[in-house]
């Protein structure tokens, strides 16, 4: 489900709507089967710089075009659409399968699991195409895993830019961080409002 913009993208509008890259927790972004460890972080940038390929880009290992990118966000986001800019000469990815809110997926998991949504991509060297999501399924995304199983015929897959359009909520779907387990309850830790209000019964 690709759609093209019906207006020129020099507008201010476009860049501000592709702003979810600011909510990505870059330090925790990882990729499997990348040729240069850490190069995955370079594909998350502002809309204006999506064609700026002077920096690094993400490339898979020689002879194996499969790529798996794990992206955690700093808060829950709603994703409306995704844009991918690949490389030239058949190195663009041809398929995209995404998984939501799953940690630690590796290739065998990705190949066997049913993705939340998958797209057939086209070669999108100018980043004008965006792939819309089934919005109802992408309502509270804490992390997203992108699986690119194949390329357009080349031995490797190159990705220059990954963009997300949507909105960020300020919520965090996080693990419960502070829990206190008690072996024996201490009444003074459990003063209720009635007791502290100076009622007749007082727990010290």
């Amino acid at each position: 489900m690709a759609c093209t913009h019906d207006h020129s993208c020099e507008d201010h509008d476009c860049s501000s709507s592709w702003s979810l890259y600011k909510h990505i927790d870059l330090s925790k972004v990882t990729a499997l089967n990348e040729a240069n460890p850490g190069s995955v972080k370079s594909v998350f940038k502002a809309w204006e710089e999506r064609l700026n390929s002077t920096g690094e880009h993400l490339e898979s290992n020689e002879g194996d075009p499969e790529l798996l990118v794990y992206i955690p966000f700093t808060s829950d986001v709603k994703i409306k659409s995704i844009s991918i800019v690949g490389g030239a000469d058949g190195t663009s990815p041809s398929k995209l399968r995404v998984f939501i809110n799953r940690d630690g997926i590796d290739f065998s998991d990705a190949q066997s699991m049913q993705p939340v949504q998958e797209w057939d991509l086209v070669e999108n060297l100018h980043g004008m195409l965006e792939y819309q999501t089934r919005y109802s399924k992408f309502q509270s995304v804490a992390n997203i895993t992108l699986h690119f199983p194949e390329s357009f015929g080349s031995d490797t897959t190159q990705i220059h830019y990954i963009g997300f359009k949507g909105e960020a909520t300020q919520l965090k779907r996080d693990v419960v961080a502070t829990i206190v387990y008690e072996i024996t309850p201490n009444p003074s830790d459990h003063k209720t409002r009635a007791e502290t209000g100076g009622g007749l019964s007082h727990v010290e």
Partner: protein
Amino acid sequence: MVLEATMICIDNSEWMRNGDYAPSRFQAQADAVNLICGAKTQSNPENTVGVLTMAGKGVRVLVTPTSDLGKILACMHGLEIGGEMNLAAGIQVAQLALKHRQNKKQQQRIIVFAGSPVMHDKKALEMIGKKLKKNSVALDIVNFGEDDEGKTEKLEALLAAVNNNDTSHIVHVPAGPTALSDVLISTPIFTGDGEGGSGFAASAAAAAAGGVSGFEFGVDPNLDPELALALRVSMEEERARQEAAAKQAAEEASKEEKGGEEQDATMTERASEGASEADNKKIEIADDDDTSLQQALAMSMDEPTSSQGLQDTEMSDAAAEDPELALALQLSVQDSTKDSSSQADVSKLLADQSFVSSILASLPGVDPNDPSVKEVLASMQNQSEPQQKQDEDKAPKKEEEK
């Protein structure tokens, strides 16, 4: 301090009965495994280690990745030797065990002890290696024991397929007098990719070099980590205290030296003044002042702290007026010399011409342009020059404080 989950693959095939590694190949291997487990858990408390055997009836996981060292050591007991090693299956099972680790943030690593001949062909091993690399699993290979044709080549090919940025290593250990564990201690398998190995590895290496089981401070960090830590901390404190004491002693020694030299200066000055005294009446008057000046200077010598720099002037004034008071002050000041800080280097004060002349100007009846006073200053200058050369940086400090 890399957060890592490690699976160790042990070779317990028939070839391990051989005694070319003391006491037997299997025992040497077990010792090496124990050491590695200790090193991993010490370098990062959240590291986990698991163990599986590759031979026997089939590949069997003895303990899944855990940070409990006791569990790991316990499962090494009562292992039986037999069968043939299945390297490919062993590595694949290890990879599966790592995949299901509890903490997904840990890096994955497999350590393989390859003691018996390798049955698989190079292609198959390379495929396995590629799969490990794709899933970013690092692999360390310990090549020991049997050395038949092609084994080394196959293992090297496997390493080349897995290696991603030098995170994987291979070590060839030939049979010989040195134990397997000792050889491994100095390798990156132990020290972990050159991050500067854990203290455990370092101390174990020192022990191996010394040839005695003497760990740092004679306490095995493994057996009693708290004691080892306490000993290390008290050693540091002792060292720091000794340094401070030595510094203190050095300062006091140098100060006493200067004090002695200053006294000599005052003596010679007095002698020279006595000589010129007869010539000039003016000098007579100046002489009394000079005496009190000497007293004042001697006093300011005993004055330790720089914060009292201004007070030096005041005390000198008081001293000039009242010799008894000067004496009393001197005594009281001498008591406080012990507490002197390193800042108070009074010879610097005196070396500073402007400061001295300002003191002199404030003294009643002393004319800084007086030749005898100038003589005193000159001799003071000469005395304090050697010290001045030593601590030139103190002089600008004095400047600021004024």
